[in-house]
């Protein structure tokens, strides 16, 4: 045991992939490491030296194929899948995308701080939340304003508040992408889309069926619509 670790606070983690061990067996395995000669205090939180025992099983076998032992240096972001689980979210809809898929989508689109991301089919805001989790400023729109506005305490704003991401919530608006009010200028750092799947079969768009422009009505010289 390297001398600098001897007196550090430490803690052992046990993790396994595709297999399980009971906590008493885990404890015995950890105690087998007594020969390490660690003399520091055991701290379950914020130990300076975090040692990890990882088991890796093939499918359906009782004993692991490989066991890894090492010092924990950093985690992946996978805990987010649990945090953003739809079951825990305050506002979802029938079209809400699974939390893991939304996070993967935002991740491979490279959502990160100081970027602006847009979801033109936001629904209940799953993608925009995922983008905000990675630090991007997120905005969304949907052809149906009701899914954005939701109800009194169940809407997209409430979702952002639930996760403390309101600071990265740019805002949302109602629009149809095929007739978008967005100014055509290059400002977006990413677009996440989960379009309605009737994309090949024709779908709802906003606008008049009859494309002829109606004549403006004037009231005393001013256009009536103003």
């Amino acid at each position: 045991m390297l001398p600098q670790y001897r007196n550090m606070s430490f803690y052992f983690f046990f993790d396994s992939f595709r297999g399980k061990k009971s906590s008493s067996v885990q404890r015995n395995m950890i105690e087998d490491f007594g020969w390490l000669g660690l003399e520091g205090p055991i701290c379950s939180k914020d130990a300076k030296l975090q040692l990890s025992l990882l088991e890796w099983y093939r499918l359906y076998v009782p004993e692991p194929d490989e066991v890894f032992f090492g010092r924990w240096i950093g985690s992946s972001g996978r805990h987010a899948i649990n945090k953003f689980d739809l079951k825990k979210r305050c506002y979802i809809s029938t079209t809400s995308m699974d939390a893991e898929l939304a996070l993967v989508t935002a991740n491979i689109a490279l959502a990160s701080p100081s970027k602006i991301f847009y979801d033109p089919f936001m629904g209940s805001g799953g993608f925009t939340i995922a983008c905000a989790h990675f630090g991007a400023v997120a905005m969304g729109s949907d052809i149906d304003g009701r899914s954005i506005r939701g109800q009194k305490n169940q809407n997209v704003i409430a979702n952002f508040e639930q996760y403390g991401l309101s600071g990265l919530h740019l805002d949302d608006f109602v629009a149809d992408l095929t007739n978008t009010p967005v100014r055509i200028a290059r400002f977006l750092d990413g677009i996440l889309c989960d379009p309605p799947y009737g994309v090949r079969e024709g779908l709802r768009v906003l606008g008049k069926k009859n494309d002829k422009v109606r004549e403006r009505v004037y009231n005393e010289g001013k256009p009536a619509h103003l």
Partner: protein
Amino acid sequence: MMDDILDFAASTLVDNARLALWMPTANDDDIKLPLPTHPCLEFLSSCKQPFNKCMLFL
């Protein structure tokens, strides 16, 4: 509709920005749908999700 999405993306994304798009791999008649392409956008990768019958298209 897919063309509208791609056109919008091509005109509003900055350089090297990404569009991540979910689309079905086959329509109701089980005819495989072709991958969308656009002259200004480069296809990076796709990720099939068989249980969803959809594909994540980057």
